């Protein structure tokens, strides 16, 4: 009994630490996902603006990555306790956890827009611009409500 108690007391901080790790990992995964999306959006946005010459192979490459990222279930990284103020470096508003269904729906919009991207970017700069518009709109829709400003 005494042994169990001593072990429990000793292990409590370890358990708390492990908990922190899970949350830090969730945040890292979430932000890494956003970075991956941004890194693939960047060249498409540059092409849409004309800063980068239209290149169908390059546009398709990034569009296919975005389609793959759209299919990823990023919701799993919206772990409770990882909102802004709960874990350092988080910019996600607590409202996201109160409206997880809406977050999911908004991510589904991104999934749909991204799924159309590989075919959508074919043809020229204007096609890329239209794809960037529809993808960017889904970024903004979620950021406006659930990301700290």
């Amino acid at each position: 009994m005494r042994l169990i108690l001593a072990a429990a007391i000793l292990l409590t901080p370890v358990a708390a630490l492990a908990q922190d790790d899970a949350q830090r990992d969730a945040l890292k995964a979430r932000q890494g996902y956003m970075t991956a999306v941004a890194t693939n959006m960047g060249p498409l946005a540059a092409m849409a603006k004309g800063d980068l010459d239209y290149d169908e192979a390059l546009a398709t490459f990034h569009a296919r990555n975005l389609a793959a990222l759209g299919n990823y279930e990023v919701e799993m990284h919206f772990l409770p306790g990882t909102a802004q103020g709960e874990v350092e470096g988080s910019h996600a508003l607590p409202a996201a956890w109160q409206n997880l269904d809406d977050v999911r729906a908004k991510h589904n919009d991104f999934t749909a827009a991204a799924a159309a991207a590989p075919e959508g970017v074919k043809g020229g700069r204007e096609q890329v611009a239209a794809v960037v518009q529809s993808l960017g709109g889904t970024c903004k829709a979620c950021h406006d409500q659930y990301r700290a400003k």
Partner: protein
Amino acid sequence: MTGAGGEPVRVRLWDPLLRVYHWLLAFFVIAAWLLGQFGPLNMTLHFWCGYIVGGLLVFRLVWGLGGPRPARFTHFVTGPRKVIAYGRGIFRREPSHWPGHNPLGALSVIAMLLVLVAQVVTGLISDPDDFINVGPLAGQVSRATSTAAVGWHNLGTWLILILVLLHVGMILYYRFWKREDLVRPMITGWKMVRRED
């Protein structure tokens, strides 16, 4: 514009360009505000409203330095003593007959101009991470600055709302408590003013 015995006289206070500027500014600030809050995800129209507001602010700066007397900053920017002296009469139930922006109202004018300039600048350098509504000058500043600018721009939204509501509230206060119509002079230019010192 001398009135005998301190009686208010009717003068053409606000010049035509200033009046046009005022109503255009009101229109485009409100339009930009509403588009920002409730507009489409593609913010091109909001951007255009912002550019127009920026242009109007440049005009106001030029007019404040070299325009007709009531429009000049030197005419209405005063020290705290004049503000306090004017503020003493704010509850009196009589028109101010002030020949221009009164010392208290001048504070509001300056606050609105400064906040709007800041709002235009932060808008120009904002990068909200959505790849479609990136300020045209966001690339000229660091990534950290263009991200932070989004927050400042958002803060500006609320400052503008407060200042505009205060502005409209005071106009109504003057109209119904002090029995002085400040809207009509901004339309026609004509205002009853007391003799200028």
